[in-house]
């Protein structure tokens, strides 16, 4: 073993700060809820739905990196796989939207179990490289396999009628569904993070050997966290496909894995609301910079560098620290 320099875990400073934050979490949740109910009156609903899908994706990603300390660089695999499966289910099998969502999410969960059990065999930096490599393997698979439509993707996916009652072709009902899915996913993650299970994840992040010596089976907890994260990422991907009626290679490419890292880092690793804030900012940025072409990549790279060098706790993390005095 080499002598390791003293390490600060990615979010240990942040989480202790937010734990002491006097603002009650329900205020923040209420403010977010009001924001999400009022903005559709002013903002283009497709934009909001896209941002909400990415917000759920980033929150799911954050459970791994912010609380378990596992930086996955292959999360696009779960977003994209669920997208392809639910698009295929809705279009080729003609399943109703609720079943298409379930099919996509289940596929992502199964994939999460497979990739997770491989990736947790190595720690630290290797974990990131393995997830990246396995996701790239899936990218090539989806590029070649016939059911995904290759470069064209699966287009014109029907939104359908939810439970045979709600016609999702109406923007209002589609927005309602996306909002409900986001809130449900957010609350599941919130509950997980603030449960004994979440505490064990933090213990593993901060000092794995000590947690193991206390009798916790590290691999067991990491795998559960990985599958949970993959499942909710898949739910986000399946929902996104219903919104855009398109499943494409963009969603499985490594740049998408990088984007979710960017959202979470910008908003604040290991904060509850950070990924949501980060997702809205990044999606808005892409919207406004779209005509600049590949400058978007340069700006995103710049944000990465600026975040790491100057405000590692992210926007929400820094705010929480300021409020705390």
């Amino acid at each position, binding site marked *: *073993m*080499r*002598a*390791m*320099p*003293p*390490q*600060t*875990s*990615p979010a240990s400073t942040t989480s202790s700060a937010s734990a002491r934050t006097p603002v009650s979490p329900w205020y923040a949740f209420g403010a977010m809820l009001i924001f999400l109910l009022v903005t559709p009156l002013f903002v283009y609903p497709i934009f909001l739905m896209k941002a909400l899908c990415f917000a759920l994706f980033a929150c799911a990603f954050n459970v791994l*990196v912010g609380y378990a*300390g596992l*930086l996955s*660089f292959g999360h696009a695999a779960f977003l994209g796989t669920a997208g392809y499966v639910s698009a295929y289910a809705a279009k080729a099998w003609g399943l109703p939207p609720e079943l298409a969502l379930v099919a996509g999410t289940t596929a992502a969960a199964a994939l999460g179990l497979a990739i997770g059990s*491989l990736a947790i*065999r*190595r*720690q*630290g*930096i*290797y974990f*990131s*490289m*393995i997830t*990246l*490599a*396995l996701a*790239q*393997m899936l990218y*090539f*698979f989806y*590029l*070649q396999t016939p059911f995904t439509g290759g470069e064209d993707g699966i287009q014109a996916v029907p939104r359908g009628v939810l439970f045979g009652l709600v016609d999702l072709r109406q923007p209002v009902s589609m927005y309602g569904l996306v909002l409900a899915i986001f809130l449900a996913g957010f609350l599941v993650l919130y509950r997980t993070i603030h449960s004994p299970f979440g505490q064990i994840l933090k213990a593993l992040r901060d000092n794995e050997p000590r947690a193991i010596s206390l009798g916790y089976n590290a691999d067991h907890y990491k795998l559960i966290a990985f599958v949970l994260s993959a499942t909710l990422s898949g739910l986000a991907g399946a929902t996104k496909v219903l919104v855009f009626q398109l499943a494409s290679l963009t969603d499985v490419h*490594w740049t998408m894995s*990088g984007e979710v*890292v960017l959202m979470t*880092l910008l908003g604040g690793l290991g904060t509850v609301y950070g990924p949501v804030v980060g997702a809205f900012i990044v999606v808005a940025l892409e919207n406004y910079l779209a005509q600049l*072409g*590949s*400058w*978007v*990549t*340069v700006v*995103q*790279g*710049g*944000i*990465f*560098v600026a*975040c*790491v*060098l100057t405000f*590692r706790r992210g926007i929400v993390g820094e705010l929480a620290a300021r409020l705390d005095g």
Partner: protein
Amino acid sequence: MFGIPSQALLGQLLLGLINGAFYAMLSLGLAVIFGLLNLINFAHGAQYMMGAFVAWFLLQYMGLGYWPALLIAPMVLGAFGMVLERTMLRHLYQLDHLYGLLLTFGLALMLQGLFRNQFGSSGQPYPIPAALQGGQNLGFMFLPNYRAWVIAFSLAVCLTTWYVIERTKLGSYLRAATENPTLVRAFGINVPRLITLTYGAGVGLAALAGVLAAPIYQVNPLMGADLIIVVFAVVVIGGMGSILGSIVTGFALGVVEGLTKVFYPQASNTVIFVIMTIVLLLKPAGLFGRTQS
């Protein structure tokens, strides 16, 4: 053999050896940097691309050909790497490893984006130097001179790197500083400068690979983007514990990839990732990994 014409087989073997040469050089650079800095250099692919572009600039704007580029490009990129290390990476050594990964990932995005803005996604052709044009007819196959040169030269570079690290005084400082930087500093060796030089050398290796690649693949802003992911898989398979290990793994995986192109072309993109999966299942620490850490 197996109903495959031996021409095709040997041709793919040669291509595989060439790819393997690049895997070996790039994974070697990653391993050297990781050893001392504890950093996975995500910008390695972008730096490889920039090496090729420096060669192209030299030819386009200064009329300097391949041979000067082989020397100048690694030096330019090495200096660039040392500036990066002094101004940015230095501040991250006390933090979790993942911040180094995130920073270099951001750098890679920026560099690739900037070059793509300037030069588009299509490649710029770079001519094979006059001395290495043509090829040898070996009787059983045609061997282009430049490809033979790439394999021989990269093998020489890899072995020289191994020799410097394992057999020279400088290398012994390097290995000592990898084991215990504090103690080595107490002996009066300037470890921060050693770190800067090491990062510069690692980046220089990537740039050298870029110059070698320029006449084979075109000079393209995204030439390193997908390659670096394959190299990560190579690093996971070999483990970064051993210099010779990463050289052998690099060449071997290139050959395996070449053979896959002959026998089952559909899997040629994914075969290295499949091997990585199998290695993770059977020997989680990697083929040459020392401990699981």
